């Protein structure tokens, strides 16, 4: 890959995603700007769902797939995050079983396989809270489409409209999925800790 000139790099830094993608159609190197710009956020989202090791591969593959599809990118969308999150979510779908098993492992044991690599010492490795375990159990039981939608909102920090774009569904579908998913989680958490909600709402 050729090195970008400083001037080109600075021009890219100011350009919106759509322009960068447009440039990359003929000069593929520009696509790495998109990687640097968004990979940290996508990485965080994927790590949350599948852990570090899988995340590295998925993030790389997300951008590779995006690169392959760059010709069909809708140039009216200045922000590429929904597109990238959509691809990443699709890739996460391949690891559905692993994701569910990790939630279940956390729910059953209190030890989170996703977080284990981030704890350096034995002392740091303490069991998850009861709330985390219940949450993990609830996440494991969510239907895939509800989980994808909810987690794009919660961990991808996308708006409902952006989630709709990412998943290619109407915004009303996103609303109803989030609402259903939240009710299901609320029930799991609420079964044993109703007071928590009041602490929240009164705070």
């Amino acid at each position, binding site marked *: 890959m050729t090195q970008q000139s400083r001037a080109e790099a600075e021009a890219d830094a100011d350009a919106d995603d759509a322009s960068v993608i447009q440039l990359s159609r003929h000069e593929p190197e520009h696509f790495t700007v998109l990687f640097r710009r968004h990979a940290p956020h996508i990485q965080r989202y994927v790590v949350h769902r599948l852990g570090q090791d899988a995340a590295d591969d998925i993030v*790389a593959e997300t951008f590779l797939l995006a690169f392959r599809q760059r010709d069909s990118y809708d140039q009216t969308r200045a922000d590429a995050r929904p597109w990238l999150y959509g691809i990443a979510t699709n890739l996460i779908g391949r690891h559905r079983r692993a994701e569910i098993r990790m939630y279940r492992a956390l729910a059953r044991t209190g030890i989170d396989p996703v977080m284990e690599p981030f704890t350096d010492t034995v002392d740091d490795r303490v069991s998850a809270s009861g709330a*985390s375990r219940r949450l993990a159990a609830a996440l494991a039981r969510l239907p895939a489409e509800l989980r994808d939608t909810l987690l794009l909102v*919660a961990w991808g920090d996308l708006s409902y409209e952006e989630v709709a774009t990412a998943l290619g569904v109407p915004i009303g579908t996103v609303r109803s999925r989030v609402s259903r998913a939240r009710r299901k*989680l*609320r029930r799991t958490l609420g079964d044993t800790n109703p007071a928590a909600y009041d602490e929240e709402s009164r705070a």
Partner: protein
Amino acid sequence: MNEMHELACFRAEAPDRGTARAEEIFRAALTAELSSERKLVARHSKRSRRLRPAWRLAIAAPLALGLAVGVAVAVQPSGSQPPAILPSGSRPSVPPSGSQPPAVTTATLLADRAAAAALAGPTVPAGQWIYEQTEHSLPAIIRRHLHGVHNPMVQDGWMTADGTMSYGGAGISGNPIYPYSKLGSLPRDPAKLDAYFVSLDPVKTDDKSMVAFSQIESMLFGMVLPPTLEAEMYHALALIPHVQVKDHVRDIAGRAGVAFVLPPTKQSEQLEIILDASDYHLLAQASWGDPGNPSTLSETAILKEYPVAELGSTRPSTIPPSAAELAAERIFFYEEYLYAPPKINHVTPGQWLYRDLRTGGKNQEIWATADDSAQAQYVNGTLTVCQRTDSCAASEQWLMPTGPSYSLIYPPYSRPTGTGPLQPVKTQQAPPTLPPLPRPLLDKLNTYSTGCADVAGYCNAVNVAANVLTGYGNYPYLDSSWFLALADVPGVSVRHVTDAAGNQDIAFTFPSQDGVTAILVNAKLLSAGTIQYEGYVRDGQQTLVLNQALVSGPGVRP
């Protein structure tokens, strides 16, 4: 809202940054991508191992797809390595060695045998509870982070045959992708079935074989299909392009099997559905990140799966669920999904609630705290408030006279100790609760003395349930197994009745005439997904909760 807050705190210690490794893989892949576009030999980084085959397949796929559907056949002798990625049909067949049983040579033949086995099986009603024990093996990449966790891990639990409800560790993937209630409208032709499943894919994945294979897998493992449909699923599996048969496999439980195999593609790990080698029933689902490398195996094997009479039972039984059980399951289902949120939920024990009750044509306004530790009424225009601890308590008609304490049903919760979401928190001692499963719960509820005589007929449990439903202010989040417990009372039936307030209700009706004889749930709202308790019948007289609302204090009307 709390669940969003919990989600935000969940795994919050994960680093908020990209990694050099991800960038390294991406750059290597991008370089390779550009090189392959230029028809040059790509230079691969070691890390891009898992990405490489994808490109090879991307080139191979058009060739493979050009071949007739269903010819993807490979015979694998025992212990052989799983197939490398090649266009199907280009691989020479390898005959099995003489010492082994004859191999199932084609996916079509395996499908025929599996279909015949499925057709010989029983039809299980949608609401039938199924007991399931599964063994899970995690890939090393996950496993190495799990200290002190047994691998493989054995779980058990219950699910309904339609896969809509599960309890404990049953159910492979939470919910099947295609709903049981719409099975009747699935195409009755295996090739059309594959195409239909592919068309359902919301993200329009390129790899249609993977989509069809995964969907069928979720149908086979996520619910108990009617025999004819299960048979069709096997035929449809055999028609998926690239699907092969692997003989002489063993699942993680060590059982001899034969597998439908979809070799890895750019979209997917290698997927396998393993059937029993002798009778072709479903044994396991497996996926290999790197075929043949056991450390990349992820597998779920079904050790036990059979119908039981009720949630919580592990004794095989083909007795179909009763009308009362089906009604209770419906409540359980809606508790799980809560399509329409209840008006009152998640109140603190001291929250005041207003209730307008009607008993035998007489209305009564009453204020009570959610835990019924204090009640208030207007007596001759004067508000009287009584605490349970006061001397007035003895003469008070309490909404919740006898039964488990409020904290047993809604255990108190204290926020995790720690210095905010970024710090790990210590496990909290779980507060005592009632038994979660219906039968033990019913037995426990029956131990509270309500003064009735027919204890063997569970009169105490029925009275206690009515007390809790009427007297504690958190009902919508009552554990949903309560109604399943009531459905276990001997002789219980469900009737459709019109109550004194004109509501169409489902009445759980109990044979004992000792105390509460019926518990009423609004039928119209239930069919719309809301569980609303309406009241109970005692001594032939209805007590209905006409109105219930959160208020700021005693004497305050909503």
